């Protein structure tokens, strides 16, 4: 136990990274074209919105809370933007409005959770119903965003063409940027550390003079913002909005975060992990699509198993590190 100096807390995330590459390798071996850079790039393109959502989820989970409203907020913001743009409003205004709403909604949830000490699960669950409903009120029908200057600018001019069919899209860059900011925020700012502190031991955090309430509300606000941003990305990604989309996405986000090595009890984990959580999920999906024979229900079962294994792994690690600290 004492021998290898590799810190316990890095084990889950490195395991995730390992699994990612193993799966990737298997894909390359079993399918031609799987190794093509395009597949790798698409992995980011297709999961950018999930990734951004997962960042918010990760932060919330680090405080020991949970956010179920993610998917609904994405659907809502995307349809809102689509609706406004298609009815002739300037895209920038639409986007900023959407983001503002996301922020406010997150703040509201955080406020309810903190000020009345309601369980986050419950509040965000209600939030999920509410905002989804609002999405339908905006429009029951999916709306396409056609020849809007801003969107086509983002589409054409903000895309780096690396080669035929190899496009580094704006949304991917945006995702990576947000990810970097989030990582930096969570590790190098007091607010970020407070998130960890609260998740680790709320009472202690209070007594150590950490502004628990403010931090909590802030975290849910950030989560709301991330979801809204994910919604914007989604709108850019599809050039459309649809109130039906992203049902149950919150569960994918949570799964990604868990696979990324974050404990649901809070305080332990890395925002960075969510990246690989998302990638692993995406990769599994790609594998299944490439294979093209597996039934949809097997997809579900496999993802379930996947989550299970990662949980077991973490469980094992926490057990080990506990016994380690006891032996001190």
């Amino acid at each position, binding site marked *: 136990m004492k021998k290898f100096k590799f810190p316990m807390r890095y084990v889950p995330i490195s395991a995730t990274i390992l699994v990612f590459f193993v799966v990737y390798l298997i894909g390359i071996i079993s399918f031609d074209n799987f190794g093509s850079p395009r597949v790798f790039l698409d992995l980011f393109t297709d999961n950018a919105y999930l990734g951004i959502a997962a960042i918010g989820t990760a932060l919330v989970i680090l405080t020991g809370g949970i956010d179920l409203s993610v998917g609904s907020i994405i659907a809502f913001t995307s349809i809102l933007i689509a609706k406004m743009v298609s009815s002739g409003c300037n895209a920038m205004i639409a986007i900023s409005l959407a983001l503002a709403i996301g922020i406010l909604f997150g703040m509201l949830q955080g406020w*309810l959770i903190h000020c009345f*000490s*309601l369980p986050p699960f*419950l509040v965000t669950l209600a939030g999920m119903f509410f905002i989804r*409903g609002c999405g339908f009120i905006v429009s029951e029908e999916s709306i396409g965003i056609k020849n809007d200057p801003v969107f086509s600018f983002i589409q054409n001019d903000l895309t780096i063409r690396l080669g035929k069919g190899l496009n580094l899209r704006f949304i991917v860059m945006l995702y990576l940027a947000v990810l970097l900011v989030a990582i930096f925020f969570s590790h190098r700012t007091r607010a970020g550390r407070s998130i960890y502190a609260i998740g680790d031991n709320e009472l202690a955090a209070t007594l150590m003079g950490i502004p628990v309430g403010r931090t909590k509300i802030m975290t849910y606000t950030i989560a709301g913002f991330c979801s809204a941003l994910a919604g914007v990305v989604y709108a850019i990604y599809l050039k459309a909005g649809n109130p039906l989309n992203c049902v149950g996405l919150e569960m994918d986000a949570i799964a990604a975060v*868990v696979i990324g090595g974050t404990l649901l009890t809070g305080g332990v984990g890395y925002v960075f992990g969510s990246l690989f959580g998302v990638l692993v999920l995406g990769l599994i999906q790609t594998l299944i699509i490439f294979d093209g024979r597996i*039934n949809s*229900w*097997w997809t579900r079962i496999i993802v379930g198993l996947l*989550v299970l294994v990662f949980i077991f792994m973490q469980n094992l690690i926490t057990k080990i590190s506990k016994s380690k600290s006891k032996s001190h």
Partner: protein
Amino acid sequence: MNKTSNKFRHLVWPLVSLALLLLFNAIFTDNFFKIEIKKQESAKPAVQTVVPDNLPAAAGEAAAQAEAAVQEVPEQAQTSAKDSKGVSIFGYYLYGTPIDILNQGAKVMVLAIGMTLVIATGGIDISVGAVMAIAGAIAALLISLLDAGKCPGAGMGPEFYWIIPILAALVLATVAGFWNGMLVAGFGIQPMVATLVLMVAGRGVAQLITDGQIITFDNPGLVFLCNGHALFLPFSVWIVITMYVIAGLLTRKTALGLFIESVGNNERASRYAGIEARRIKWLTYVICGFCAGVAGLLAASNIKCADSNNAGLYLELDAILATVIGGTSMAGGRFFLSGSLVGAILIQTLTTTMYMKNVSPAIVQVPKAMVVIIVCLLQSPVFRAKVLSIFASKAAKGGVQ
């Protein structure tokens, strides 16, 4: 004093909100409360005609199950059809919206019973919806096999062999609960994640069982569960009542309730007091699984088919809402079965009201969310305290106690 008030305080707010909702209906929805006593005769012909309906479907299913011997299947099924009379005991039954609310709410109520116990131990089970699907799937599969005589026990004849699928479904669901319990209590995995596994995988398993098809059935026994009536009420209501009574006895007449609350409140101390905390938690998940099984059967019976994709979809959320509305804290500890039932009824009443009032399907979820938040606020002591301090900061002193 303290004791009794504690017993009932949690019921106040959900009951009040339910009352308000009903009042609203009483005023704005004509004949919301109209309950007529129907005689079975009026329904019998209908039942008669129900019989041939779906029947060849069952046959079709059977055929689908195995290409061979499509011919004699209909006869087999016919015989099964003949005996599907007497959908009600005593010929009379009540008919009206409130009855529907109870009948449709039965699923969530049954779920809520199990969920309450799990939440009381400080856990949560988000897999019940998927488990419902599994239970429905296995039941439908078996009954279709039995109808086609492709399964041991078909000899009993359709008026008896429905017991087989029911038992099978319950056993399977209980096993699912056992699995959850193992992850949570056995391996000490967080309930949320542990049950997430089955939530994700469960529906897949259900589809695996039905091979992704919607299996229809028309076995009188199975159909009776959610469509039959007994002693004036839908049979499902009686199922709920029975489950509730059993759960009540199990938790309050034995020490189980005390143990659950103690474990949910301080697990380590409970272990030191000699309670087998792990087993208690495990047990609650098993019970929850069983309840999910019953709910799954109800769901399937209600529409006479197993729809793996939609059966119990998102019902886990309703069950959790019902429990919390009922006053059980998600942190674990004290639990209130009666409260959970009221919560479930409240949710169902809300939904039905939406239908009756022709609320655009789009916004149905919005009011639901609001009601949930409001009730939970009213339940939250912090909120009460704050309101109190706002209204009468002086009276607050006397106010509490």
